């Protein structure tokens, strides 16, 4: 079962994605505070990270960049998602695999995730 770490500061979206991915046979860890990411990486060891860009105090793109510099996390695929569609233009800078604008279709999200795991 693939492990997916979801990070979003909006609790409702977090729960939505968590439930949807669980229903589709993913092992999901949901984190709403960016401070908890480091710990989740170490303990949960995700196969993919679904990361919100604006995390109230931190930028998902910076977190993604930081992941690329650390040996343990550099190969983990990252999918960024944000309500600001323009952010999609800057995913190459932080070496994220994909960008999904909010609001998203669940099917689209699922399809994108499946592209990078399995």
């Amino acid at each position, binding site marked *: 079962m693939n492990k997916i770490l979801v990070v979003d500061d*909006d609790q*409702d979206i977090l729960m*939505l994605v968590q439930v*949807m991915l669980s229903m589709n046979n993913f092992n999901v860890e949901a984190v709403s505070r960016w401070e908890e990411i480091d710990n989740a990486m170490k303990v949960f060891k995700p196969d993919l990270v679904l990361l919100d860009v604006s995390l109230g105090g931190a930028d998902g793109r910076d977190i993604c960049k930081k992941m690329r510099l650390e040996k343990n996390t550099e190969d983990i695929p990252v999918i960024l998602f944000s*309500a*600001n*569609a*323009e952010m999609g233009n800057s995913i190459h800078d932080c070496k994220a695999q994909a960008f999904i604008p909010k*609001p*998203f279709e669940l099917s689209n999200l699922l399809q994108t995730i499946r592209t990078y795991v399995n």
Partner: protein
Amino acid sequence: MFKFRDISIRNKLILMQVFTSVLVLFVVFGVFIYTDINSYKVRKKDSIVSLANVIGTNSISTLQFQDQEAATKMLAELHNVAPEIIHAGITDANGQVFASYSKPGEETFKIPRVLNGKAYVFINNQLFVSNPIMNNDQILGRVFLEIELSDLQQIKEYKYELAAVLLSFAIVFSFLIALLIQSYISRRLLQLVKTMKKVGKTGDYNKIITDDGKDEIATLIQVFNKLMQQIKENIEKKDQFIGIASHELKTPLTSIKGYVEMLDLMQTEPQKKQFIQKALSNVNKLERLVKDLLDVSKIQSGQLQLEMQEFNIDSLLNETIESVEMVSPTHKIIRTNDCDNQLIIGDRQRIEQVLLNLLSNAIKYSPGENLIEVECEKTEKELIIKIRDFGIGIAKEEQLNIFERFYRTKDLSMHISGFGLGLYICRDIIRRHYGKIWVESTGKGSVFHFSLPIKHSLQTQQTVV
């Protein structure tokens, strides 16, 4: 027609300076030439009058003794004394010619009528003098002299030529000086104009002009800088607003949409499923409206950024048509031809947005019909995509307005939802691709056209811009 108002400030300043200096010089030269020639005439007249006096004095005795021969002989001497004299004559107290002289080759002497009682008169280049011959307050007769002022003509010509040459030099010099001086005024103005034009075109409000003058132009520049600063601040505020609005509107929408989708997946009871789907389709509608509003805000503040890439227009057309047909099964969208797999440089997502907009409009405005046609036309420089519907059409007077913001059709016979922003956004996207968008409609249905430059011409246009 030439209008002084229409020429540039730079040329106006030059023209004004050249005109002023030439006008002043013209007047000055005129006065000089006039006084010069006049004083020459006065001198000439004085010398001829004194000559006439001498002749008069010398002819008193000849008149008293009626010695015509002596008088004629005396006059004949004039040929050596003053060769410019053409005619000379002495009349007696009765006004009869007593003695006369004519320069060889000239007609015989006649009393010049032009004098008409005056002591002297200048006619053309001739001077006529009439001087009384007095003896003890008694008038014995008159001396008439007619002089050819051959050097007057020469002097005039010389002065005119000199004036013309000096004036030409003056024009050249004043032009050169004006060229130098005007740049001081016009350079700053032109810089301001250039910057303003650039700001208008690019929407880059960071342009600030440095100028340390204290005159009105400096004030103008200061006001401009201040305005730029204010605009910049307003745009920053607006950007912040767009950012916040974007996030705050879309985040709850994401939740609603996601949960309703989940409900839709989980629900099997037809009635409930139908309700859920209605909610879902309205959420999607709301999502599109929010996107449109944010796009318009971005367009207005020049923040709509294009992600340029090369893509195949045929595959984009096929994908878009497929996705539209999926949500609108009422209409069949057919392509009448293909675009030879033409490659286009542009923002694929934004062009897709234009296509989606035009296709969904075509469907929206042709209820009861079931066909939409998509045609491709290729010229040397551009690719034109035509989307044809067979619906209600667009009245001629509305055809330009439909691309404006918040424009809604005046045809109230059908209720169409939306803000009226779609075509405005389409027009902006196409314009940013250096293309055009327009509509043709002749009653039955309408054809929306948009053009995109083909690769090579887009590149040259970009270097121009």
